[in-house]
């Protein structure tokens, strides 16, 4: 009795929890693109099959126990007699169950292979191509153009136009990372020495969070990114802005900040086009102020967080590659003002 009650409760809980699971910004069951949608459909197909099988097996077990349970002491049983006649009924039942299993597995295999083919690529002659390079622990995002000075380099934010196929080319600068934006598609590993590609497409506007899914060291937990799907004209405007070199600061404080940037350790790792800083170890900061977060989705991009990050990023994201920068408060203030002009 206790067992059946428990089973019932469990089944109910599982059902409710699974239904409740399809929400959320980083959910695999809240698709915003054709590939994620196809995977979601396949998921529900396989899920219903395995749920049915699970329930049947447990009912079978429950009935067997209910029918055959006995409380007689084991020692008083005589040794079971040898069954000489073939157990034909039981053999048929087991054989039938195996046959059904094989049949269901074929359904799953077929559906899975078909879905696999469908999501492998999207038909498009001239897709938008974005290079993603994994770094410990941030994402370099590059929109390559035929002219070198038209190439856009940014970090941790991937803008794409709604309804257009995008091909993402992945590679890694150090260890293995995995690119995963669940609302749009499954994972693709970024493996040093290998170049890979996957296609995505967003069917609706939105900001979709993604996160590194392959353990990559200390700050694997803080390696998020955002895919921002927006209408084509907005996307084009964003791209045009990113291509442009920010004007030299006019405000004296910002000018001082630029000097701080160029005379401190910042310049050793970061690029700001137009300022003369061109190092490539850290994220490109040319349009830092246009991004919504810093430190790979760890903090909202505002003056306070930026200050904290510059002074002692190690307390926020221990083990990351940026050293602490104990700047004087005047210098810090100027630097922050300068960075916030980089729209």
């Amino acid at each position, binding site marked *: 009795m206790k067992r059946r009650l428990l*089973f019932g409760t*469990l089944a109910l809980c599982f059902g409710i*929890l699974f239904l409740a*699971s*399809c*929400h*959320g*910004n*980083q959910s*695999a*069951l809240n698709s915003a693109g054709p590939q994620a949608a196809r*995977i979601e459909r*396949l*998921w529900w197909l396989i*899920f219903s099959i*395995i749920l049915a099988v*699970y329930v049947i*097996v*447990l009912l079978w*077990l429950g009935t*067997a126990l209910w029918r*055959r349970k*006995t409380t*007689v002491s*084991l*020692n008083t049983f005589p*040794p*079971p007699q040898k069954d000489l006649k073939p157990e034909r009924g039981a*053999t048929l039942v*087991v054989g039938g169950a*195996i046959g059904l*299993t094989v049949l269901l*597995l074929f359904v799953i*295999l077929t*559906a*899975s292979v078909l879905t*696999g083919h469908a999501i*492998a690529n999207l038909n498009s002659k001239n897709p938008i191509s974005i290079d993603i390079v994994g770094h*410990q622990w941030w994402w370099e995002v590059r929109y390559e153009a035929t002219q070198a000075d038209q190439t856009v380099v940014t970090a941790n934010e991937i803008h794409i136009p709604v309804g257009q196929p995008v091909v993402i080319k992945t590679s890694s600068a*150090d*260890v*293995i990372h*995995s690119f995963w934006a669940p609302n749009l598609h*499954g994972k*693709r*590993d970024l*493996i*040093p*020495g*290998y170049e890979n*590609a996957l296609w995505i497409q967003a069917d609706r506007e939105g900001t979709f969070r993604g996160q*590194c*899914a*392959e*353990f990559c*060291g*200390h700050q*694997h*937990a803080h390696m998020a990114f955002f895919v921002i799907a927006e209408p084509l004209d907005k996307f084009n405007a964003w791209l045009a802005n990113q291509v442009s070199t920010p004007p030299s600061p006019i405000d004296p404080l910002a000018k001082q900040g630029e000097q701080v940037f160029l005379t401190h350790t910042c310049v050793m790792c970061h690029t700001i086009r137009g300022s003369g800083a061109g190092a490539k170890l850290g994220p490109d900061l040319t349009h830092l102020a246009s991004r919504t977060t810093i430190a790979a989705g760890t903090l909202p991009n505002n003056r306070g967080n930026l200050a904290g990050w510059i002074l002692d990023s190690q307390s926020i994201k*221990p083990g990351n590659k940026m050293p602490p920068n104990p700047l004087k408060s005047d210098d810090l203030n100027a630097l922050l003002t300068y960075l916030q002009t980089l729209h």
Partner: protein
Amino acid sequence: MTPVEQAGTASVVEVDSLQRLEQTWKDPGGFWGWFTHVNHRSIGKRFMVTAFAFFLAGGVLAALMRLQLSRPENHFLGPDLYNQIFTMHGSTMMFLFAVPMMFEALAVYLVPLMVGNRNICFPRLNAYSYYIYLFGGLLLYAGFFTNTGPDVGWFAYVPLSGPDFTPGKRADIWAQMITFTELSALAVAIEVICTTFKMRAPGMSLNRIPLFVWAQTIVAFMVIFAMPAVMLSSTMLLLDRTVNTHFYNPAEGGDAILYQHLFWFFGHPEVYIIFIPGTGIVSTIISTFSRRRIFGYTAILLSMVGTAFVGFGLWVHHMFATGLPQMGESFFTAASLMVVIATGTQVFCWLVTMWTGKVVLKSPMLFALAFFFIFIMGGLTGVLMASVPVDLQIHDTFFIVAHFHYVLIGGAVFPLFAALYYWMPKITGRLLNEAAAKWHFWLFFIGFNLTFFPMHILGLRGMPRRIYTYPSAMPWRNLNLLASTGAVLMTVAVLIFIVNFFWHVKHGEIAGNNPWGAATLEWATTSPPPVYNFAELPTVNGRDALWDASPQQPIVTGLDDDCRQVLMTHVMDADPDHRDEFPGPTPIPIIAAIATSIFFIGTIFTAKAFFPGIILTGIALLIWYWPKRQASLRRRKREIWQR
């Protein structure tokens, strides 16, 4: 008197012969004597206690992780410590608990008893394998407590674990721990195979071997094929790190994916190495507690063999996200699904066995039945993983964490507890407390589901594995808290078991030879068995040895009692072949194990340790294999034409 009891009594044996046997087989006492034991039950118990201690250590690490994840942006553990802890947890549970417990401990203790012989084949190698395992485990924990715990995951993917990204000795200690534990497993595999095939009781032909023994033998074969792959991959990693080879360095023509292939070629069979003994336990217990011969012996056996074969053909489903060619991936999808057929067959056979038997719900049976609730769910979510598109979404998320805990705890830990409740009376001679066992079961069962079920949903909601913290904006807070609560219940449950264990040693009900009325040979002798296992070696008359024993079941006579003589039989039909003298107590295994450890641990720190290490180990082995004058004299004396 029932036939079962008669087969177990030794009334025909003279008393002074028994005393001589006792004298011959006795383990030496005292502190130094402890290091010379070579009896399989002594070594088996050590494996059990050590593996259980590592299980507890791994459990403490798991509890720490659950504490850290119980709320978002928690500062209880930093990333450095958390990464060490999850690596230690995985490595401990896989290499120091699951395989040593499910395979080495249970096989070493039970297989010789179940085939009706006096010791395991190669007893000194057996002792050696235990020390090697122990030293490997101690090495890992010594590293952890000196802040040199590995922090690259139990899989240690390159290039993260390579020289460029993990300086220091952390990854080296991990890689060498692998060498230790796999060497130990390989040695036990050889012993188990030889014991099963050459040392069975007369009459126990291949088609009468108990399913549990078959399970361990199949696993032993898997170990022999799987473990070299991981020893190779971890040794190549060690070479990359210590002598600057470039096996895995893409900048110099090496390949990071090569490591993954080698690792998972071991890593997936590893899962079956852990759970096939579990299915062997479930088959045994279901048959005993359903008061019925197992239905579909041959089908279950072939399923296990099938699982073992197919298990080597689906490692790539751990690598679907690396972007391999689609055609190849489909092959591995199909192979992964095939496992369902094999496992399904076993499940259906068990269901039919219960359906047509009379089910007695004692604690071993309860734990075995949990297999149905838990393992089957894990197996079914595994179907989702076999499908490439779905796997691309759930790979490396908490869904996977949920899945493999359902498979491994359902397929190994629940059967393990079933086995402990079932065989403990044989080991200690007393029954564990049944009421405490039921508390243990229900708390563990409920706690387990509370801990791991929510992880399915966390994974679908996008929570990746191996993150030390998560932002409070993500919808993961409540489910993580729920999971952490469940971990408390599991801890309490295991504590109940430990208390029950210590209580039963003194106060448990006396078990008698065969408290469950079971069919296999270990129940034919006393509980606990004498040092020589069986006063007179039994013979076997059918698949269920004790149930099929005739009232005048013959026994084997003619083994000498003044030396450790065992009966060797033929592979197919277990006809008596010859008598063989096994070595007695000796400190050689531990000396050889220390020499090997100096070799292994030395090479972590300097490549120069290689040749001295080899020479030292070579000397130890030379002493080991040096012919013993006394034994050969005895052999000469026994030769018939000398008389």
